């Protein structure tokens, strides 16, 4: 077997679903500091391995826990049990352009967002032209980003994130907003990534693109891992499980 980039072992994540949430001091005191909640397991003993240099897809219906798993990977949530081990630097793209300041220009935001994603000023300066070039918003780079269209916003955010140069890139379904040209550009970028021996983990509801881009895939349903394996097989199994599905 090839080297492992990310190893996920028995990861479980619990959320508290509050019936009556104590978000004010008054209600906390009145109810004697007990808030009424029940536990909800968004992930249950999920475990799989992602080999270095592969493109890995995560599929499943809405609310199945895909984003939650990515957030655990990105260290935004911490799983209750289990462990995640990485081999290399990880960057996550859960929402493009988070951290953009609407009043600041595209240029200023590139520096801001780059440093939020962990780049040093020198790195950003070095990559600045590449970032602007990839995003295709040169003309507007000195405009405040609040005047950008949502597609331009995504383009700029994605360009910054992709230039962080991570060994492992984690992407939630954020590219849907870009136009066909940009999506093609991104798909190409993923291929380049792969050729450079980097690993990509992505979530998508578009089975065609998963089939096209990914080597392997994992199928989550209600927080449980149903199947992991070659992309084609996993997707077929997933599609077959859907009501009224013919073999697509």
């Amino acid at each position, binding site marked *: 077997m090839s080297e492992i980039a990310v190893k996920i072992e028995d990861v479980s994540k619990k*959320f508290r679903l509050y019936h009556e949430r*104590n*978000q*004010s*001091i*008054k209600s*906390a005191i009145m109810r004697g500091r007990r808030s009424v909640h029940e536990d909800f397991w968004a992930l249950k003993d999920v475990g799989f391995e992602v080999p270095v240099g592969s493109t890995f897809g995560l599929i499943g219906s809405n609310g199945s826990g895909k984003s939650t798993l990515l*957030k655990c990977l*990105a*260290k*935004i*949530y*911490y799983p209750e049990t289990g462990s995640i081990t990485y081999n290399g630097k990880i960057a*996550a793209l*859960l*929402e493009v352009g*988070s*951290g953009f*300041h609407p*009043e*600041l220009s595209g240029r*200023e935001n590139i*520096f*801001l967002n780059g*440093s*939020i*994603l*962990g780049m*040093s*000023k020198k790195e950003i300066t070095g990559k600045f032209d590449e970032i602007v070039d990839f995003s295709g918003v040169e003309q507007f780079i000195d405009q*405040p980003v609040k005047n950008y269209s949502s597609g331009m916003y995504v383009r700029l955010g994605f360009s910054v994130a992709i230039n962080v140069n991570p060994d492992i890139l984690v992407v939630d379904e954020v590219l849907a907003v870009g136009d066909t040209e940009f999506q093609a550009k991104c798909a190409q970028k993923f291929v380049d990534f792969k050729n450079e021996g980097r690993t990509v983990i992505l979530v998508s509801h578009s089975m065609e693109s998963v089939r096209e881009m990914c080597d392997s895939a994992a199928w989550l349903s209600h927080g449980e891992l149903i199947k992991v394996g070659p992309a084609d097989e996993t997707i077929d199994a997933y599609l077959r499980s859907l009501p009224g599905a013919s073999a697509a």
Partner: protein
Amino acid sequence: MRYLKEVLESRELLANLTLREIRGQYKRTIFGQLWSLVNPLASMLVYTLVFALIIRVQPEAGDPSGLDIFAVWLLCGLLPWTFFSNVVQQGMGSILSNVGLVQKVYFARIVLPLSKVGSVGYNWLFEMGVLVVVLVICGAFVWPWLPLVVVTMVLLAIFAAGLALMLAVANVHFRDTQYFVSIIMQIWMYLTPIIYPISLVATQSDKYGGLFGTTVTILDVYRINPLERFVAVFRQLLYDNRWPDPQDFLLCAIWALAAFTVGLWIFRRSERGLAEAL
């Protein structure tokens, strides 16, 4: 220690976030940075009118500087107070106002409250610069004391940061903390000798004598307030132009370190759960 290292590694991010605040603050305003002077000026005018001209509060003249101008005396205490109160209140809300970031990107969360210290501190520096100019024009000899003023400013920033860290966590779990704190801040301001001299409290305290038959006086209790010490040191340096009282100065340092240590400890313990609690 590992945590401190991580925080240190985020210093560039901290600088960038601070710049974001500073740059975004007065974008598309005509007067720009001058706005940061308007607030203290307005308060100065109101307090001077009410307390110096109507109520006739008379602080002692600066010794040895010989200054005897209420408005200047007031500013030496008011500017540090405004900084402190703004850092605590804005730093406290910094996690909540960056929900998008906290839930989508991993980074050392502590930079959010700390960036508020930076951006509010930037304005404060500007205000203090203007104050120094005013002091010089009024004939105070402040230059030799400026290094110590800067040290005290840093201590106050550390103290404020510590409180902001604690309250930022509390505010995520109990959203009404900020309303609570804004009331406390108002009361706290009047419990600190900013618009009136501490000699008024001393007089009353002497009249009353020891509390409950002990030797502890009202003044002793009053002086537990850390901000009283900070304001005293700032006035000794800026208004009186003399060495600060060593006890006051030492207490400032102790308060600052204590608040920051506790704040850091609390913040660090709860940092991981912040994204979910939002």
